[in-house]
């Protein structure tokens, strides 16, 4: 595609005018705002070039917020991929009756969109200080979750909550890919002497690799930019980047508006790197595709 269009670019194709509304809209409401952030991250309030905003990120509080956000995204994306993959594989390949599949897919559609504020409420009502499971464990078994060090408002508490939408998202995306594995591949591998593990390692996983990778990148970005759940759960004090940025936009608690640009720019860079990595690995791993 790129080669052909390079030659035809010199001639004006009037059909491109049909894309004008779409182009105008995306430029106004996606490209320009993003550019504004990127440019602003390198500008002084007076408009001249500076690296001071970026340098300003180098404080323990901001760096640790990035680090927590990255860890949170990596952990929830990894666990979401693993568990979601296992559930999808179990339903599709595990010999379960067919009627299990459709409800699971519908539920995944619901749960992956049931994020944000209400999700936080649901978990507070379940694992919070007076939540259903917390009380039940204490009354029936004398297990005190809090005394055992569990706190819903902590890193691992947040991980559990995020998994509620990460796992279903993985199931939704990976299920069609798993269904695309042909029965003959498994049989051909078996008849050639391969064990189930060898089949997965040498054939199935390499075939699924691009899909797995893409979903991982998506889950990473999904968790990295999420704010509503964490905000409703813990309020503004949790130290992750989106909440810091949120507080900064609302009340300028950092004092310097251009530091906000830098903060947002850092978020773009990180999701950009995650997706760049994905595209690069995908191109490398897909030599066997047209």
């Amino acid at each position, binding site marked *: 595609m790129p080669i052909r269009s390079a030659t035809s670019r010199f001639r004006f194709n009037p059909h491109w005018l049909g894309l004008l509304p779409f182009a105008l809209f995306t430029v106004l409401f996606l490209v320009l705002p993003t550019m504004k952030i990127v440019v602003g991250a390198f500008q002084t309030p007076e408009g001249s070039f500076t690296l001071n905003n970026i340098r300003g990120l180098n404080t323990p509080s901001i760096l640790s917020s990035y680090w927590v956000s990255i860890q949170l995204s990596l952990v929830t994306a990894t666990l979401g991929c693993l568990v979601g993959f296992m559930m999808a594989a179990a339903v599709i390949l595990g010999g379960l009756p067919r009627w299990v599949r459709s409800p699971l897919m519908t539920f995944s559609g619901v749960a992956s969109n049931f994020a944000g504020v209400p999700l936080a409420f649901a978990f507070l009502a379940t694992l919070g200080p007076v939540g259903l499971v917390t009380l039940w464990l204490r009354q029936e078994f004398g297990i005190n979750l809090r005394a055992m060090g569990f706190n819903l408002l902590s890193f691992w508490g947040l991980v559990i909550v995020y998994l509620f939408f990460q796992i279903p998202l993985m199931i939704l995306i990976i299920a069609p890919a798993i269904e695309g594995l*042909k029965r*003959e*591949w498994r*049989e*051909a*591998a*078996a*008849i*050639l*002497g*391969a*064990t189930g593990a*060898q089949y997965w390692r*040498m*054939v199935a996983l*390499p*075939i699924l690799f691009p899909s797995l990778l893409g979903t991982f990148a998506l889950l990473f970005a999904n968790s990295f930019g999420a704010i509503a759940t964490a905000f409703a759960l813990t309020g503004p004090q949790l130290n992750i980047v989106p909440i810091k940025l949120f507080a900064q936009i609302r009340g300028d608690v950092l004092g310097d508006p251009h530091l906000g640009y830098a903060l947002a720019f850092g978020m773009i860079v990180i999701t950009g790197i995650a997706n760049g990595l994905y595209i690069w690995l995908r191109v490398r791993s897909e*030599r*066997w*595709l*047209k």
Partner: protein
Amino acid sequence: MAFLEIEHLEKSFGTNRVVKDFNLSVAKGEFISLLGPSGCGKTTVLRMVAGFESPSTGAIRIDGKDVVKLRPNQRNIGMVFQAYALFPNLTVAQNVAFGLKVAGVGRAEREARVVEMLRLIGLPDKGPSYPFQLSGGQQQRVALARALAVRPQVLLLDEPLSALDAKIRVSLRAEIRQIQRELGITTIFVTHDQEEALSMSDRVVVMNGGVAEQVAEPFEIYNRPATRFVANFVGQLNRIEARVIAPTTGEIEIGGTRHMLGRSLPSGDVALALRPEALHMGADPARELNLTGQVTEVDFLGSVIRLRVDVAGNRLSADVFNRPDAPPPALNSTVTLSASASDLIILTA
């Protein structure tokens, strides 16, 4: 001593018995075809030999050893699938080497075997290609090489030619047969195409409704079908309704005309079956059966002319060779066809 033995094999899915008391013994190096319409149980038999389905009852022995309890990856069998089933993420060489790799064969030996196999299938340069870069026929040859690379005891071919173009189908047919002879590998070939079965096999098993109707060499199957189903399924067949006048001398009446066949027949009404090529143009006193009728259709196919002739209400197909000196008969003209009594197949059942 048979190399592959199948005894009293049965398979039921729920209450549906798809294979019923199937018996077959295959000699070492023999090429056997399972021929039948879809749903006749031929693929199920093959999948039980491979180990993908387990028999409800019965035994499968390879070289004297019962394999029913073994998993597919323990049976040392090669298999080629209808849809190629090459691993898309591996190159041709890696596909061929797959079975050797999982068996723990060393790299040097693997590479040597891959070279040998690719030469065997006539694709020595395709090692680094990926499956999507090959044509269907090439992919299927690679699949064959992959199956053969592990030196299996038995080769199973599950309709390997059905997905290919007609022309490649015919050429690959000969190629598979030649490679099979060269390696002397015991082979079971499943197909619904009678031409494939007849042209490639040492023996053919015609299956219907989960039962082996006849097991015989292609010549036998075609010329002396054991059952009405075999007669109808393999090749084209003309049916002539006749009434037997004298069973011992073989005198019969077809549409009011009497014929003397000179062979004994059952009494009453019989159906006489005749291959289209057993009918010859023109009256011939040397042949017992001379039938006169009206030409209703003339298909000029090149070397062969297919005629449709109405003989006393029986619509007969006759295949006659093209002769440059004699144009085919005109439509609606009256012709006489002759046939030998020994070519007649008497269907009583």
